């Protein structure tokens, strides 16, 4: 899995990772986040080799949306508050909470959802909650792992537009969608 493999991403790039299932797309993200370690080779982030010190810096700079929707339990408002109470995110707490309703609205979620428990949400709702939670972090680098798999067509394009058309965002995305915004510059990373 993932042998003789090298690539680099520049700020502002939008990269779609593709390849058949089982090829190691998710493993690539796990390697980048330091949840797995490569047997050989190295990963560099902002010109520093990823190691036991820099990995923590990367986790504070990158927003990751996993395809696994095990994001927690309990009240949704409390869930967002908890994310923003993490020391690394505390500085954005007020600003992000002020923008929360706008994000809910953009991703077609009612404000009343905030009173519900995560366990009560559908797969599609949970997926959008994970996306919003990543956006609340006010980061500009995104690792997105199949973030539209549980969404219908119109929502899919809305989500992908949001990330792929923002010139400030650097995006590495695993996606099986055929839809791509017409005026976006997309690079493809094909694993085989």
């Amino acid at each position: 899995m993932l042998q003789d493999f090298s690539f680099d991403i520049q700020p502002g790039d939008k990269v779609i990772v593709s390849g058949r299932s089982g090829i190691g797309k998710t493993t690539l993200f796990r390697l980048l986040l330091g949840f797995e370690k490569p047997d050989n080779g190295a990963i560099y982030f902002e010109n520093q080799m990823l190691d036991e010190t820099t990995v923590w810096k990367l986790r504070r700079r990158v927003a990751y949306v996993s395809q696994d929707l095990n994001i927690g339990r309990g009240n949704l408002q409390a869930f967002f508050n908890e994310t923003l109470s993490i020391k690394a995110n505390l500085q954005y707490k007020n600003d992000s909470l002020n923008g929360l309703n706008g994000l809910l609205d953009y991703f077609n979620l009612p404000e009343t959802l905030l009173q519900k428990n995560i366990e009560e949400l559908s797969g599609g709702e949970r997926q959008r909650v994970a996306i919003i939670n990543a956006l609340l972090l006010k980061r500009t680098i995104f690792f997105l792992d199949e973030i539209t798999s549980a969404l219908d067509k119109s929502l899919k394009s809305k989500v992908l537009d949001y990330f792929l058309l923002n010139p400030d965002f650097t995006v590495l995305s695993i996606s099986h969608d055929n839809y791509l915004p017409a005026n976006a510059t997309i690079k493809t990373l094909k694993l085989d």
Partner: protein
Amino acid sequence: MNGAQDLSLFSMIMCGILLLVPLLGVWYLKLDIARNLLVSTLRMAVQLILVGFFLQFVFRYNNWLLNLVWFLTMIAVAAFSVIKNSNLKLHHFVGPVSLSFILSNFFVVLYFNYFIVNLNFILDAKYMIAIGGMVLGNSLRANIVGLGDFYQSIRKDEQLYFYKLSLGATRFEALLHFAKKSFLAAMNPTIANMTTMGIVSLPGMMTGQILGGSVPLVAIKYQIAIMIAILASTVLSISLCLFFTVGKSFDKYGILHKTIFRNNP
């Protein structure tokens, strides 16, 4: 104080006859545990007889060093039992768990003996070993639940743990959710037990004291004090256990070492 009435040899034989009831039940229901039942009963009897003789000796001499050594032995056995029953590897956990048990139980028992019972000799065998045994026994049960649940739920819910790390959480912040859950699991039985105490069950300590000749009102005061001591040692020992074991159980990337489990899949 007049002690409880002694049980004669005849009494113990009558007690053996009472054992026929569970044995007959087992035989009638064709349960395959008759041998186990007999071996366990015999083992319990031998163990208690040996401990009985030993405690007679310990209580008679009431020497601080001997009391201390015996209490440390009890703690070591408790630490082994917690690790074994939590499905964790002994060599990895024996140091930190023993240290946590020593610190928390010594603190609580010495506090109890000095500030609550107002003993002049705080290492007195009768108090240190009896009170220590109760505190230790209960915090042992709580730690099997607490420590086991903590590490098993991180292994089971690793995606959730990774998710928290990916949000920028420090290892401590990411583990807090799991620690809270384990604390609840560990403390709930003690709290539930406290709410029905005296009505549904007469606690062992009170029973012992009443049989030993104490008036119920004295027994009750001791019971209240011991329950609070148990809660204190439970919270202290679980906190210390987690605090001392976490450093060794995760790598520098914040990933849990799977080698800490005995049944490493």
